[in-house]
């Protein structure tokens, strides 16, 4: 009975201590003669148990490798034996029960959420109200009266190429000799575009005497500059 109690108390010691000294402690207990000696040993083991857990936290683990050379340098041992640690049966049983519980929990969670869609939370972004939706092209208005653009423009005195800018029903038109009239849509300021085109390639500049004096037509690689003809 006392041996069982002694063994139990020794078994409660920190692992490192138990692995190293438990067999020897039991060996010494087996040498105890008389009940009084056995009781003293049990009491001593109990005090040692308290001391180990309360005062020796640094000794709970095995000696670090840094401590080994010091031990080896004493001349008695040049290597350190590390026995393979095997968990106790109770620890294995507890581990198995815990693993099973975790497995069941995860399985149930999967089954429970199988039919439902996972909807990740996304921040709600409210688009700013567009002033000009794509369906509604913004209508640019020319800042100058259309009469300011009206007139005949020629490249120069030597170049006979001319361009006529006319206003009909509050709409600006550009025409070349021998070509159809092109309706001009205002882009911004004094810049216009061909009615079917998306780029603003026609611009008027050099405002003087109540009229624009210069016309620039940019068609990719071709650039045409003309100046107002004064009649």
């Amino acid at each position, binding site marked *: 009975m006392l041996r069982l109690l002694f063994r139990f108390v020794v078994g409660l010691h920190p692992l490192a201590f138990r692995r190293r000294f438990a067999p020897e402690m039991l060996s*010494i207990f087996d040498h105890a003669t008389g009940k009084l000696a056995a009781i003293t040993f049990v009491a001593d083991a109990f005090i040692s148990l308290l001391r180990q857990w309360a005062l020796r936290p640094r000794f709970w683990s095995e000696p670090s490798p840094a401590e080994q050379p010091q031990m080896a340098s004493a001349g008695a041992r040049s290597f350190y034996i590390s026995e393979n640690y095997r968990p106790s049966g109770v620890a294995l049983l507890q581990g198995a029960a815990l693993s099973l519980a975790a497995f069941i929990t995860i399985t149930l969670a999967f089954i429970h959420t199988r039919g439902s869609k996972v909807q990740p939370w996304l921040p709600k972004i409210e688009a700013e109200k567009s002033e000009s939706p794509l369906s509604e092209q913004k209508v640019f208005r020319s800042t100058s009266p259309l009469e300011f653009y009206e007139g005949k423009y020629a490249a120069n005195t030597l170049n006979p190429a001319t361009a006529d800018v006319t206003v009909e029903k509050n709409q600006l038109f550009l025409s070349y000799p021998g070509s159809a009239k092109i309706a001009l849509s205002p882009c911004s300021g004094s810049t216009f575009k061909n009615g079917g085109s998306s780029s603003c390639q026609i611009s008027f500049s050099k405002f003087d005497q109540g009229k624009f004096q210069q016309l620039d037509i940019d068609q990719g690689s071709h650039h045409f500059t003309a100046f107002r003809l004064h009649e």
Partner: protein
Amino acid sequence: MRDKQTAPLSPALFHILIALAGHDLHGYAIMQEVSRLTEGEYTLGPGTLYDNLQKAIRRGWVVDLGHRAGDDDPRRRYYRLTSLGTSVLSAEVSRLENMVRDAKVRLRIPKPRRA
């Protein structure tokens, strides 16, 4: 040689180091040797013994020699005092000697002066 952690030694550790100063011993033999040296006035239990042995081993004062072939009990492991342990023990003995000397001086009864 000795730091703040080692001085002074506890009675148990001091007696264990003294027991190991002569021979390599196993745990039970250390207990018997301590009991013999103190004429039975100081006895170590296995818990106290191995608690202090663990401390001594960690500090490099004692080494574990392991099992010895042909021993009566295969569970027994033998322990040896290292040179560091010997130095620590020597320092402790010197400290105690100084204390004893000082104590003797203080306890000396002054001789009465002749009139």
